[in-house]
């Protein structure tokens, strides 16, 4: 508990953990939003979420290697991963979209393994990163240091999230996606081409992950086999926030980022993930209790 005392004695380090956590939480929230979209509309839990993120990172890395600024990688990864998502939907996901959840989990699990191995072949297992060339922001007389790329990533993530909300609310396609999510059969009767909606939803998710991956490669490092961390975080966030609740996803994403940092600081890095999962169990239990109480009132 020595570490807790440090935080009490020098609260400035709490600020450091909080800011860092919130900034990177936005990137997690982005990937989680994509997962919620596919889950809500197609009833598919996409296990390959993390691999989409990593592949997006590699696209941006390739853009940077080609001599362009990695910021350009964000739209390029978005578009490239949209195409990848489309191909994967037509080749695999379309065949399992109406089957039960277990089949689609297996299918996307297969996609995830395949993508890892292909990335390993193409990009090798070496660790890669893209340098944005941005500096560091100093707060509180230099005691709190924030990498400017994290702030940029935060803004990118929020802007993309905002654009998605507008797209879902205003555009015809967005409305069709929401209609399909509510009741696919009714939407089909009313003339929505649900097959196309599914394809676009899945590709859109891949594209969102691609953009998230572009931010990840600029903030941290990527490697073909570390996608799982992003899949797990997305899953957590969606479970906590629920489907179709964007504000919840954002709040859960930011909260998760901060909670992880505090857990890592106080308990040690080895308990960072364990703490997050324990938190998930507590939240689910708490929610269950609350629902039970409501049911009692209804009765």
């Amino acid at each position: 508990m020595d570490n807790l005392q440090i935080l009490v004695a020098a609260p400035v380090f709490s600020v450091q953990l909080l800011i860092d956590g919130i900034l990177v939480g936005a990137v997690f929230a982005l990937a989680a939003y994509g997962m919620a979209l596919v889950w809500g509309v197609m009833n598919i839990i996409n296990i390959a979420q993390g691999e989409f993120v990593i592949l997006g990172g590699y696209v941006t890395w390739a853009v940077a290697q080609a001599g362009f600024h990695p910021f350009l990688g964000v739209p390029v990864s978005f578009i490239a991963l949209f195409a990848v998502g489309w191909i994967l939907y037509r080749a695999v996901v379309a065949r399992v979209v109406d089957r039960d959840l277990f089949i689609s989990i297996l299918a996307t699990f297969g996609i995830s393994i395949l993508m890892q191995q292909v990335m390993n072949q193409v990009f090798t297992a070496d660790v890669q990163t893209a340098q944005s060339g941005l500096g560091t922001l100093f707060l509180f007389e230099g005691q709190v240091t924030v990498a400017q790329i994290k702030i940029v990533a935060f803004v990118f993530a929020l802007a993309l999230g905002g654009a998605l909300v507008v797209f879902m609310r205003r555009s015809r396609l967005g409305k069709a996606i929401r209609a399909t999510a509510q009741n696919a059969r009714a939407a089909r009767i009313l003339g929505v081409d649900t097959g196309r909606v599914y394809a676009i939803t899945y590709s859109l998710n891949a594209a969102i992950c691609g953009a998230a991956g572009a931010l990840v490669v600029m903030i941290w490092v990527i490697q073909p086999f570390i996608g799982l961390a992003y899949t797990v975080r997305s899953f957590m966030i969606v479970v906590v926030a629920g489907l179709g609740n964007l504000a919840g996803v954002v709040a859960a994403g930011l909260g998760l980022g901060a909670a992880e940092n505090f857990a890592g600081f106080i308990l040690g890095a080895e308990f960072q993930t364990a703490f997050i999962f324990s938190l998930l169990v507590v939240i689910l239990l708490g929610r269950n209790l609350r629902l039970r109480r409501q049911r009692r009132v209804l009765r």
Partner: protein
Amino acid sequence: MTSLTTRVGMLAAGLAVGGLLAAGPAMAKVEGDTIVFGAAVSFTGKYSTNGKHTKNGYDLAAKRLNDMGGIEVAGKRYNVKIQYYDDESTPARNAQLAERLINQDGIKFILGPYGSGPTKGMAPIIEKYKIPMVEANGASRSLFNKGYRYLFAVLSTSEQYLAEAINLAAKLSAAEGRRVQDLKVAIAVENDPFSQDIRAGVIDDAKRWGMRVVIDDKLPKELNDMTATLTKVKAVKPDVLVVSGHSKGAALAIRQVHEMKVDVPMLAITHCEAADVIGKFGAAADYTLCATQWDETMSYRDGWFGSAGDYAKTFQAAYGYVPPYQAAESSAAVLVWADALKRAGTFDTEAVRDALAQTDMQTFYGNIKFDETGKNIAKPMVLRQIQNGKLVPVAPVEFAAKKTIFPRPMWSER
């Protein structure tokens, strides 16, 4: 009836062949005036790059020995030949190939494979048949706590990888007139067997000097962020930060220490070369200490290759690239065999095994002397510091070309 006689005949033939094999070379595998060594090295699969370095190292040493007239055993000179198999980067295959080398090919002297996993695959087999093996590329501590008698390793084992950093910090601080017991050590290593070996070595040495370990974080396998650990480093201000998490750990540490402007007097990591931290991060990687088994500027020398620098030149001329330490230590393993066979003066495997156990020599790769578990205790790990984008050997101080820049300059002064 005919089938029965056929079967009996086959059985008899089988027994005869079996008997022949059993009665095979009771002495070592020596064809005329050539000693044949056996090796199962990865030519394909995930270790294939390092497998190639290993084979090149073995071949270069064998060629040098032959050019110099071979190995002298009991007054007669023998040439060296190496029989290779591809282990496909699969440890289980190494066990099969060890059987094959020993039983079918009659090999009695074995050179190790690349990597701790494959070496672990071979060790029990050579132990079963009491066939000595000198290996150069299996560093895991777990190879040396099983009581193996026939396994000898020329390289420094994994717990030594960063322990030298602790000694260096102690010596440098003492030279500055600081009390060594006041030094604080922070450890952030991945939660895998290799990195935990490293941690154990660092903790042992910190204890020996009476230093305090103030951070002891185990990084997760899917490591993607070190912010929490590094914030702790900023808070408790240790004098030494040790990071080991394979390539991604190295890259993340350099990146985030720079971005968060974490000031720590000494930062020591593994996998600098594999992660290409200089190429990726440029000046941000400066002053980092990187662990390596060997460096061509060290002042070791021997009668076969000359100095470490001479070896590097010979290797470069033969294969067209700078020798990585995996190649150097592989060459050293062949030299250890040459030395031991000469001292044994016989091909009797027990006598040769005892001669190996008594090895005490200097090679271009470093000093070699085995303890009772078979690991080399005479060669320390080398630490190289990144200075102006170049890896410069700075420790062990006795053999290193340059001085450590310590403490690292503050980020605000760079």
